[in-house]
């Protein structure tokens, strides 16, 4: 048997349509573990639909989505939920944290919901928040800064050790300094934790940090300029965050 791990994400010939409209058309996407990619596109281009398909929340009309070697289209709803829990993490634009909980509880909650034992869940949560520089206790979640909140959200997405991390406009609600920090953090994750990262964003400077960049327009996903040439175009240092 080969020791090579399966690709984190493999999308082939993906098509999704609503009556009278094709939202995703023949989408192809490949992402190995330890790699990052960014998808940019204007509003209504189908970015959120693509994320919903990757999460298995909507069923495509055609095509195949494989995450960590498993074709999610063949899974029953129960097994799909379990597979999603075990392989996929997600970071949202507004963090979607619960202000009532402390940062460590917010992170540990995701692990607890996934069935992790109490000690493990809180231990991992504390470790991740330490690594990401967020005060785990003492400061209520509601009092965290925007950047700290988004880093907490990243920690929560990582707590179940996902193979694939999806990020939906993760810097959309942040000021410039925090945006840079969070973008750097996200694109450093493949190197630090070995997962694949797929970021959906409007922001070309954020997208430029990815290993590969795609543009989604009218449901068609096309490779955009290579990272190197794009970095040069937007005056980013070569090699990005990695």
């Amino acid at each position, binding site marked *: 048997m080969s020791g090579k791990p399966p690709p984190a994400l493999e999308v082939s010939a993906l098509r999704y349509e609503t009556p009278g409209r094709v939202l995703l058309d023949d989408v192809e996407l490949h992402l190995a573990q330890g790699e990052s990619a960014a998808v940019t596109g204007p509003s209504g281009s189908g970015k959120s639909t693509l994320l919903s398909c990757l999460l298995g929340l909507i069923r495509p009309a055609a095509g195949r989505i494989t995450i960590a070697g498993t074709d999610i289209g063949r899974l029953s709803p129960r097994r799909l939920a379990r597979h999603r829990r075990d392989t996929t993490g997600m970071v949202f634009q507004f963090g*979607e944290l619960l202000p009532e909980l402390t940062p460590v509880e917010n992170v540990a909650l995701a692990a*607890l919901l996934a069935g992790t034992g109490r000690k493990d869940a809180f231990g991992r949560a504390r470790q991740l928040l330490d690594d990401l520089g967020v005060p785990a206790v003492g400061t209520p979640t509601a009092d965290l800064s925007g950047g700290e909140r988004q880093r907490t959200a990243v920690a929560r997405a990582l707590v179940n050790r996902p193979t694939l991390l999806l990020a*939906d406009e993760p810097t959309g609600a942040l000021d410039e300094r925090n945006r840079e920090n969070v973008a750097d953090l996200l694109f450093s994750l493949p190197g630090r934790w070995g997962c694949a990262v797929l970021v959906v964003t409007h922001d070309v400077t954020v997208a430029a940090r990815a290993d590969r960049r795609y543009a989604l327009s009218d449901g068609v996903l096309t490779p955009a300029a290579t990272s190197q040439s794009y970095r040069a175009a937007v005056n980013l240092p070569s090699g990005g965050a990695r």
Partner: protein
Amino acid sequence: MSRDRTRPLTRQLLRIGHTAGQGATGGQIRFVALACATLALAVTFAVMAATWATYEEREARGSARSPQLRAMNSATGSPQLLWKGTGDSIGDRQFEVVHIAPLTTNAPLPPGLDHWPAPGEAVLSPALLAEGSGEGIRDRYGRYAGEIGADGLASPGERLAYVRPADGALTKQNAYPVYGFGLPAPWALGDLALVRPLPVFLSLLAVFLLLPAGLLTVVAARLGATGRDRRTALLGALGASRRQVALLSLGEAGRPVLLGTALAVPLAALGLLFDLRLPWTGYLVAAADLRAHAGVLTAGLLAAPVLVAAAVVCFHPPSGQGRSTRPLGGARSRLVKVAAGLCPLFLLILSWFPATAGRSEARTAMTLVLMAGIVGTLATLPAVIALLISAAGRAVAALGRRRGAPGTLLAGRWTVGRPGYLARLVAGVVIAVGLLCVVQVYPSMSSAFVQGAREARAELGFSMLTVEAHSASAERVDQWLRAVPPGTRAVGYTSTLDPVDVGSTDSGSGGSESGSRSTTGTAGATGSSSGDEIRLNAVLRGECPVLATLGLPCPRAEGASLDVPVSSAAPAARRLLSGVGPAGEVTVVRGSPTGGEKGAVMVLVSSDGRDLPLYDLKRTARAQLGPLTAVDPLGQAWIGGAQLVADQLRWVPLLGTMGVVLVALSAALNNLAEIMRFARAIAPLSVLSGSRRVYAAVAAWTLMVPLCVAAVWGVIGGVWITLPFTVPPRNGVLPGATLALVVAVLVALSGVLAAIAARGAVREAERWRPQQD
């Protein structure tokens, strides 16, 4: 032309409204709420219409059977029959026995009778026959001659007897000469004497059903209004007219409102088709009465959807509320704390009241203090409960964290920051249960006479009976007494109430023989007085054996009398003489119970303390001493009166429980929106983690537990605020069974609501999608 264009637009707007309602956040909960509100209103209006119909028909039949004491209309100038109503009891329930005797060959019959019973025959209502079967009711008034027809009964469950005594037993001296039947206004006869007036009953329905149903309607109309308000504002900006906006709202509410109405229709149909016996009260509602006013009933049913639709169109809450998932802060939380701080003050007022009220002369001021204590307690207790639950939230969160239970952790943390939500959630239940306790206990307060009568019944059973045979001669009485079962002894009893000079009441103690005295008229008079106190003077007249049974000394000579302290008599006699008081005296006369005079009032005493054969004695006394003779256990009048009040009050727990359920439903639905917002906040997390159970835990902790705690604390608060009514001298009783029923219903309801909330939250989660596009 324009109409052609309007029609499709109207349909279109209704359809868009319907679709918007289906897609709206919490749409299912609003659907349930609107359906429940329409059902509650429809049932309430139907019940009110049915009440009105029942009163109308009952009074119409009551009027038709009321005796005419004067010649009316074209009636002949001479009386046609003799008529006399008296009372009797089955168990402790009183009912009417009407004695009738024709004076002419074509004397009119009362409604419900198709022929004149023969002398010595009785016609009974079906309910009396059924309920009195164990007490020999069939033969009590003579030979049984059939049942009274429905048109002769005020209501199907009425207990009533028409008796034609033996010829000559009714006379113009002991009965009314009557010209016929039918009066514009009914006599208070039979059930008409037992029911409260229509306005009183409708007020009860208004308080316990209409108000809560109205509250539920307002809550349902406003539920999830944030999204609708935004839509309304948007449509307004796009130039939509008020009518068009209203059509959208109606389209959204149409189906649940129709469903609620449709659910009420079978209930109303049941009432129209069958006589229904109501739970708890046992009242039998006549289907024929409702059919006679089916139009009013239908109008009541149809008014409900119209009102709910109007509420949906008209109620627009202030916009911008409740969009935050952040804990409520500042002012609201402070208000809850201030209210909670005031609660002990009101509790103290209530616990201090009974001791003080007995001494206080300033009754009005004390009543105001009492009211302030009750209202203040009910208003502030929810705040205390909310703070307690909120404080318990910390422990719940700690428990969740210790056990690694995410739902418990979430619910605990969420509860800590929301005392305002909790206060709103529990307030309705606490206030409703508290008020129910007050209305339960207030009318149950009984006088010392009823208390004494109940104690006497418990102690004596049927071993001491009173006999009133006002028209029987002494010979007939003596003859009857000779035939009573062995061990039955009789003593004549006469009592008078006389004013007493407070300064000269001490007439000495101990027995003092003073020759014979009359046992009629003003026996035992203590002389004239200018004082305002009165004293009961009692004279007992009997032979030595019965006086011995009563623990009383027997005067030496026939006809001689003794004044004996009541305190020296046997316990049974002390019960009989309780009105005289333990420090008073009774005059004992040796002789026959009747004293040889007509119109005996006697007491039958069992020589061995065992029960006397009450029902046999009732029957034989009527047969031999005259149809108007009454034989009853000691204190029956007090107990019967109290039973009547108790029967009337059985409506309160029935209606009160329904009201409390509606209030609790309103409170819970009103707060479901809050829970749904929380559910939406955790939706992304639960979708990614594949966990749905967390919603059940959250719903249980945030909805079910507070409602259950509120139900239990509502009862505790209710017991506390009724404290001034349940201690002597008021002696009110708080029925434990009713309170247990209310708590059980609320616990069940809170479980159902938590299940609905959890299901709604799971559906919300299932609909969640990343939406940044």
